């Protein structure tokens, strides 16, 4: 029997091993997410446990959109963001947050798993291109931005990479919970 190995190793092509390690954490989360969503049909991807609740498809689109945002905001140091040019949909196309009692957004209606796989793959390729040349010093760079309440938000690039991992992991957990709720709703084990 082969050994079961769980190793996070920085890809050698990354200039910064730390950035490479963050990238590998994202990749590991994506492999797990991909495995757990295989076989989902379009109807399952747009199923809601109740009106106003997120669907699996919405969460998959949201993961891709948010990844593009943070990579452009931090590592790429942009102040204007291009979602459509990277993943083919716009910032609000995930429908999040839904209004109370709302249904899934029309932009995602009838979309199959291949559509969402493509969003996620394109977002990740964009991340890889942005991080592969990043230096350790780049992770320390701070970005200041105004908040709606008049305060200022300060983040560094390392925090952005940490946040991308926690963000994807959090929504991955919600996706698995939705699958569980869906099976319970139709009486499947």
């Amino acid at each position, binding site marked *: 029997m082969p050994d079961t190995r769980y190793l996070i190793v920085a890809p050698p092509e990354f200039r910064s091993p730390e950035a490479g390690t963050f990238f590998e954490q994202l990749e590991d989360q994506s492999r797990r997410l991909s495995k757990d969503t295989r076989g989902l049909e379009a109807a399952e991807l747009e199923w809601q446990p109740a009106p106003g609740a997120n669907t699996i498809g919405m969460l998959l689109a949201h993961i891709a959109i948010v990844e593009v945002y943070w990579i452009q905001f931090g590592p790429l140091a942009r102040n204007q963001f291009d979602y459509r040019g990277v993943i083919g949909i716009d910032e609000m196309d995930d429908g999040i947050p839904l209004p109370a009692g709302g249904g899934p957004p029309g932009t995602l209606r009838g979309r199959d798993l291949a559509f969402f796989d493509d969003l996620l793959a394109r977002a990740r390729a964009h991340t890889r291109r942005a991080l592969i040349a990043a230096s350790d010093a780049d992770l320390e760079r701070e970005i*200041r931005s105004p908040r709606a309440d008049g305060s*200022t*938000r*300060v983040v*560094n690039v390392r925090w952005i990479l*940490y946040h991308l991992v926690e963000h994807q992991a959090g929504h991955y957990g919600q996706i698995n919970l939705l699958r569980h709720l869906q099976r319970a709703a139709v009486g499947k084990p």
Partner: protein
Amino acid sequence: MTGAEPESTAPRTVESLYRPPYGFASDRVGILVWALEEQRRALIADTRGLTPEDLEWQHARG
């Protein structure tokens, strides 16, 4: 985010800076411990006020 924000209406700066904490022989280990602590803080903040009924609620049996 880095802990609870102070209650004030004055403009302020909210910092989310992820840097190696002091006291660890390895910066990388320190950063990973920081991440665990950050998750613990967030989890505690989000579960304050839950009652025993909330904590044992099930959406369905099984």
